[in-house]
């Protein structure tokens, strides 16, 4: 058979017999799959909520990541089990689509599977369970839409947005200065948001970090930050009203793609070649200067000669700028990326109000800040923090918060957090379940129970008695018909999430339920796992 127990009594799947194919069938396969998925979910469970804990992840090279972002944890965990990988994918797709709630979705899927397991024990066919879950998820999303509220904000009144971002940030390590961070995120999003079309291009927001300083020093730069320095130490470090030439060709003699040889057989030819070379350099620099550029940004390196000549022409330059940054720069400054020197014309130059090089701390770390770009409103959030892990984690947290703000700009429907939405859905699903005549009824009830897992985990992580608090909330929601009651994680004294100001986006929540249901259905439908053994 396919299951065995190791010396600690833990079941595992014997597979590793070389060359031999192994297969697990029927109910065993389902149970094994569920166990694997649950084990992934259990790892994440303790990270949920404002008082959730962090994980240390040590990579194969010994680098450390400390995070409580679900997607990041799963991504770096190196899950090898097939079903475990599905859960990782689940978290990732939530991350791509919504950007937040990556932990919640996995916890929900885990809970759904746990419920499914006991249904399987009762002999209910997996497909019926899947059907029931599907129906329940429809009810739940509908209920979410019903209890959602319109959320009013505009360019002047960004306070509600800040509140929402603060909810997201409160579960992260940056919650010490979540107010400041939330403001930064919202300002960044509002700066690039297209309120007419209700869209935000996240590519325009860059999050850069530099170790050192305090978290409080994190700032929003109205422009682009390049982690590069100006190529020659003596070039101007501050350029006002810069005209920027964005080049993807190196300041070097051309290298034709076709294979060729230049034969030198006389001294004259040698001389000619030398002059030719000199001319190349002169021309390159001259072309840059002639089109009126006051700053050259190049994707490649320069020769020492070119560098020196640029310097003599008082033309500051930045070299080795990455492709992504280059594109961003082009968008932001309204310039065109120029692949050849001959194509440089004044109208292809980008312009920026201010370009300056700044240095940090006692080391020689320098960065170039390009501000007040002409064409668009690209912004950069510049993160500082006590150590590298802190900066990385802050960057991830800010990314989540920025995504949330973007989602609100896209669609301004919100539901209330703190598990209140889940409890409300659970009540609705249970009610609906009673009206279903078939076996799916059980599955729907199980779904409702699984929904309780989220507030349960929230309460548990906050050090509250989980079952008791969730039961109280449920009873109260039923009694008062108030869907905004949730777990009081921060021990403020009220269960009303509306007055606590804890929001989440409606699409985020709906997506969570839909994605989790989908994956669970997928897992339930598997009744046969065939693994090709590792070939020699």
């Amino acid at each position: 058979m396919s299951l065995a127990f190791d010396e600690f009594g833990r079941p595992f799947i014997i597979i590793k017999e070389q060359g031999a194919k192994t297969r697990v069938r029927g109910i065993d396969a389902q149970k094994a799959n569920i166990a694997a998925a649950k084990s992934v979910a259990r790892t994440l469970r303790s990270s949920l909520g404002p008082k959730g804990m962090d994980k240390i992840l040590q990579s194969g090279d010994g680098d450390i990541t400390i995070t409580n972002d679900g997607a990041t944890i799963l991504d770096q965990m190196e899950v090898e089990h097939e079903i475990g990988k599905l859960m990782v994918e689940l978290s990732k797709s939530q991350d791509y689509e919504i950007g937040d709630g990556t932990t919640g979705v996995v916890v929900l899927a885990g809970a759904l599977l746990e419920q499914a397991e006991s249904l399987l024990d009762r002999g209910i066919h997996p497909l019926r369970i899947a059907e029931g879950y599907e129906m329940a998820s429809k009810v739940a999303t509908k209920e979410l839409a019903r209890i959602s509220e319109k959320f009013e904000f505009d360019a002047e009144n960004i306070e509600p947005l800040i509140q929402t971002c603060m909810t997201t940030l409160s579960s992260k390590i940056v919650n010490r200065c979540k107010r400041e961070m939330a403001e930064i995120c919202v300002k960044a999003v509002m700066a690039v948001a297209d309120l007419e079309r209700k869209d935000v291009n996240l590519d325009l927001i860059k999050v850069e970090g530099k170790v050192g300083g305090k978290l409080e020093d994190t700032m929003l730069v109205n422009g682009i930050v390049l982690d590069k320095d100006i190529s020659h130490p003596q070039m101007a470090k501050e350029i006002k009203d810069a005209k920027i030439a964005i080049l993807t060709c190196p300041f070097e003699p051309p290298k034709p793609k076709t294979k060729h040889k230049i034969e030198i057989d006389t001294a004259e030819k040698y001389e000619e070649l030398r002059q030719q070379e000199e001319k190349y350099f002169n021309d390159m620099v001259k072309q840059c200067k002639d089109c009126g550029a006051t700053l050259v940004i190049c994707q490649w390196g320069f020769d020492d000669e070119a560098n020196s000549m640029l310097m003599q022409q008082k033309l500051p330059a930045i070299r080795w700028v990455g492709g992504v940054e280059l594109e961003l720069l082009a968008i932001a400054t309204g310039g065109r990326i120029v692949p050849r020197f001959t194509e440089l014309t004044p109208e292809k130059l980008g312009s920026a109000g201010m370009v300056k090089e700044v240095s940090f701390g006692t080391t020689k770390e320098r960065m170039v800040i390009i501000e007040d770009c002409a064409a668009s409103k690209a912004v950069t959030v510049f993160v500082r923090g006590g150590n590298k892990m802190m900066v990385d984690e802050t960057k991830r947290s800010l990314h989540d918060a920025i995504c949330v703000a973007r989602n609100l700009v896209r669609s301004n429907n919100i539901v209330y957090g703190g598990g209140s939405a889940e409890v409300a859905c659970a009540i609705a699903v249970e009610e609906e379940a009673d009206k279903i005549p078939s076996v799916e009824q059980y599955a729907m009830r199980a779904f409702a129970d699984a929904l309780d897992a989220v507030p349960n985990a929230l309460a548990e992580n906050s050090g509250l008695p989980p079952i008791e608090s969730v039961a109280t909330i449920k009873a109260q929601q039923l009694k008062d018909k108030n869907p905004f009651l949730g777990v009081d994680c921060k021990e403020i004294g009220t269960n009303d999430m509306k007055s606590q100001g804890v929001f989440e986006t409606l699409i985020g929540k709906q997506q969570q339920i839909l994605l989790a249901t989908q994956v669970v259905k997928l897992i339930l439908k598997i009744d046969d796992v065939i693994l090709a053994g590792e070939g020699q």
Partner: protein
Amino acid sequence: MATAAGNADASVLREGASEEKGEHARLASFVGAMAIGDLVKSTLGPKGMDKILQSVQRGRNVTVTNDGATILKSIYVDNPAAKVLVDISKAQDDEVGDGTTSVVVFASELLRQAEQLVNQHVHPMTIIQGFREACEAAKAALERAASDNAGDEARFRQDLTNIAKTTLSSKILTNDKEHFAKLAVDAVLRLKGSGDLEMIQIIQKPGGSLKDSFLDEGFILDKRFGVGQPKRIENAKILIANTPMDTDKIKIYGARVRVDSMTKVAEIEQAEREKMKRKCEKIIGYGINCFINRQLIYNYPEQIFTEAGVAAIEHADFDGIERLALVTGGDICSTFDNPEDVQLGSCDLIEEVMIGEDRLIRFSGVAKGEACTIVLRGASEHILGEAERSLHDALCVLTSTVKDSRVIYGGGCSEMIMSKAVEELAAKTPGKRSLAMECFAKALRAIPTIICDNGGLDSSELVSQMRAAHAAGKKNTGINILTGEVGDMQQCGVVECFRVKQQVLLSATEAAEMIIRVDDIIKCTPRQRE
């Protein structure tokens, strides 16, 4: 066959990976962090001990140091939490340059206290909450205790000297701290507030004793003039270049020489020489009397320079070139076609000087008066290495003090002030958070305790005396390690930089918070190395 039991874990991770959860994870990270703290603990304070570090690479280089950042940088750490501490020490070094040991020791003390709280079943989040509030209170107390003498130049200088002495007293330079404090303060004040440490060059020359170290007002380059060139140049005009002076290759891709007769080879060689000669003539045409190149200068061009009476210095490394350009105010150039565009460097006198056994080149009377060179002398390379690190720390602290001129008293005095403020807050706070605050105060007091212990003093006696004195309102009380008594730090002149202390407090709390929050450690399969 029986199915999976409810709470057993199926192994979903890759083979070789491991996962530690809950209490185990927390224990592992606390233990790791405390081990790192204990490792560097004994180097803290004026009577701290040094460590010998031997590298595993070929040569088995030995470093003797008591600089926390250097020690931690060199050791190989496997424990994730320990890595966090190593990282904050590095960040502290980059940001303010000193306090690298204190920050690690303080963070590990915080964790030691946190461990006890966790054992008493206080939720980690409650501990963090308490630590945060305590940190705010401590920060406020620190700000209140700081004094600012920036307005009064004489007193500010006195402050700087005292800070330098305090910093140096825990290092190898402690015997000559008066001397080095003066060196460091002079050097930093020359910068006139720009805080650009690049302008201060430190040269190590074995020989003599530490006392013979001196500050030179010019710039010293550890190179020599070419053979037969003038050894002393007055009113020098300097061209600083980064250009190949060996053979000037043609960079057009695919070019190669192919000839069919010997004479043609000779012709091309001639052309090559012509090219080099023209380059040299162009350089000489600038009207310079000193030429400094980053790259090699071959004999042929050197000879041309000698004939023209131009001193040529080859192979000045990149740092040297950049610094020279900075101090003499010249451009670094690589092409020589437009003499009118190039800014030449200048200085009053270039001469060859002897330091110990070596000949070096000194540029004095440079255009920018801010730069200077500190020449360190000492009995062995190890001493010199440690002396440079110590001096670097002192210089960093001084520059941060110039930027933020607030100072506070050292000798454990500031820690006592902070711990008093935190304890007052704890007394007023209801709930379990107050437990965490008390622990924070205890961790703060651990620093003077360790300093006493390292000095072989009766720590419990002294710290409690100090605590009593602070409670009685004597706010300047601290430990005078040299006499082994409690005393007034204002009179002893033990002063520290406010910014360093603040940074220690903030980053240590941040790091401790990060480690306490962890409840799960997942280690991936180590990458197989051949």
